[in-house]
């Protein structure tokens, strides 16, 4: 327990210490990564610890994002209370979807969550008048402040993202090491046995799903506030796959895996879209005389390849492998 507190404390301290050293470019990146890692931490509670694979988590991220951003845009609320509305929207979405989707298991659960998310995405497009659909809308810099705290300032934004991430990281670590967490892990391992030991699996799965949805929603709302934008692409299927990918890369069922996965994948995509894929397109053109303008922007291809390789060769992810090989107490 003490080791676990030290480890998480160290990671948070390292993120604080890193702040003054970062260039403007990496500064913005890391703030974004921490918000996305918060989303992944939430996803990990459900997928990594409870063993439920959702393919529709973007709906919770979007519930937080639009719950918050629409309150600012349409009701002219300030971003603080609007953020809380976003989180509340994700909470309600989590409860409703949980009650319905948790009646299914395995592939059924994946399909039902995917369908709910698709319905949410189409709803956002349908109410184009308010949401501006795919194009999205910005939240002006002037209102992105809580009191005198200007959240569009890069340093403030960094620490706001870090605060949110730290809260969710610590909450997830506390949850999975609690008595309820023991039941969640046991459900992942063998649900039937958990039932025959006197626990109602549904209650615990709902707890995991709602916790996961709230964290995803908090990340979505924070994204809208800190980066001043809400758009339907965040509700699309891509944003349901991303957290799965980050968690798979970092290590499902490890508290720090989501952060590690989000950092690595963010920079891989960054490098792929900026250097690898354009380079590949240029190579194809010079070598074979084929113009391939699509290839330069086909970074999703690389993401797909990464996913396939992970599932085939490292199903435990990076930190999961570290836990098996070196540090068995890793939470």
């Amino acid at each position, binding site marked *: 327990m003490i080791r676990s507190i030290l480890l998480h404390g160290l990671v948070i301290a390292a993120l604080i210490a890193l702040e003054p050293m970062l260039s403007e470019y990496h500064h913005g990146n890391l703030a974004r990564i921490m918000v996305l890692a918060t989303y992944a931490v939430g996803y990990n509670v459900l997928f990594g610890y409870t063993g439920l694979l959702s393919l529709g988590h973007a709906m919770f991220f979007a519930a937080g994002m639009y719950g918050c951003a629409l309150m600012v845009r349409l009701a002219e609320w300030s971003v603080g209370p609007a953020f809380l509305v976003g989180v509340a929207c994700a909470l309600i979405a989590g409860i409703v979807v949980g009650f319905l989707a948790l009646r299914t298991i395995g592939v059924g659960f994946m399909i039902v969550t995917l369908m709910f998310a698709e319905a949410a995405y189409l709803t956002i497009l349908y109410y184009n008048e308010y949401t501006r659909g795919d194009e999205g809308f910005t939240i002006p810099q002037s209102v992105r402040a809580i009191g005198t705290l200007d959240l569009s300032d890069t340093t403030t934004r960094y620490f706001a993202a870090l605060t949110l991430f730290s809260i969710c990281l610590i909450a997830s670590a506390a949850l999975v090491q609690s*008595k309820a967490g*023991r*039941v969640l*892990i*046991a459900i992942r*391992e*063998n649900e*039937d*046995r*958990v*039932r*025959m*030991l*006197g*626990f*109602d*699996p549904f209650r615990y799965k709902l707890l995991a799903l709602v916790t996961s949805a709230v964290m995803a929603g908090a990340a979505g709302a924070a994204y809208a506030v800190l980066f001043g934008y809400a758009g339907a692409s965040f509700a699309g299927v891509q944003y349901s796959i991303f957290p799965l990918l980050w968690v798979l890369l970092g290590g499902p069922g490890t508290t720090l895996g989501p952060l590690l996965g989000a950092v690595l994948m963010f920079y891989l995509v960054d490098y792929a879209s900026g250097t690898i894929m354009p380079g590949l397109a240029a190579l194809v053109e010079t070598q074979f005389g084929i113009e391939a303008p699509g290839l330069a922007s086909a970074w999703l291809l690389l993401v797909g390849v990464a996913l396939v390789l992970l599932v085939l060769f490292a199903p435990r992810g990076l930190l999961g492998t570290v836990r098996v090989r070196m540090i068995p107490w890793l939470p």
Partner: protein
Amino acid sequence: MAAIAQLTAKGLIKDFGGLRAVDVDGFTLHEGEIRAVIGPNGAGKTTFVSLLCGRFPPTRGTIAFAGRDITATPAHERVALGIAYTFQITSIFGNLSLYENVALPSQRRVTLDGNGKVRERAMAALERVGLADRAGEIASAQSYGHQRLLEVAMGLALAPKVLILDEPTQGLADSEIADFIALIRDVAQETTILLIEHNMPVVMALAETITVLDQGRVLAEGAPEAIRANAAVQTAYLGG
């Protein structure tokens, strides 16, 4: 000991498609007894006890526990009432340590009682089956015999009123079986035991009453000696 009915079933039927797997008119388990359920393969023994502990609902019939109708009570609530089931096919948490495996039912008991310590209870359960010194080891790395004992320890940690053991000695070595018989005798001091067992020496050593199932029906019921002498049982078993 006065025979107090603890777990009873009436007109219990379970159909799988067109197959009637269980058709038991009446069954009564008395408080404090050790009951064995025997029968040839496919006789419906596991299906029968699964109905008792609520793993799936009966097609027809009622089940009562301590005078209360529990036919519609979900499995996890029956566990809370005091009916514990250990699986025939070893169903432990393979990736977790032995301690974590028994900590889960211990935690359930502690929550139900509102007092006690999870660690103490879990270690006591491991101690009882002789696995305490392996508490930190991963369950799937244990021998089959040890996994069976862990399965029993998980049942014990729940401190049930009725412990249902589904073929607990399957795959155990002879030396382990002797220890197992002693363990069950000890447990039976405070718990009613319902035992599905193929190993006849174990049945004869432990059971006070034997229920014989054949093709889902109760073929015979009585003291071990009477069952041994029963012609119908011999026919069912030996095909004679």
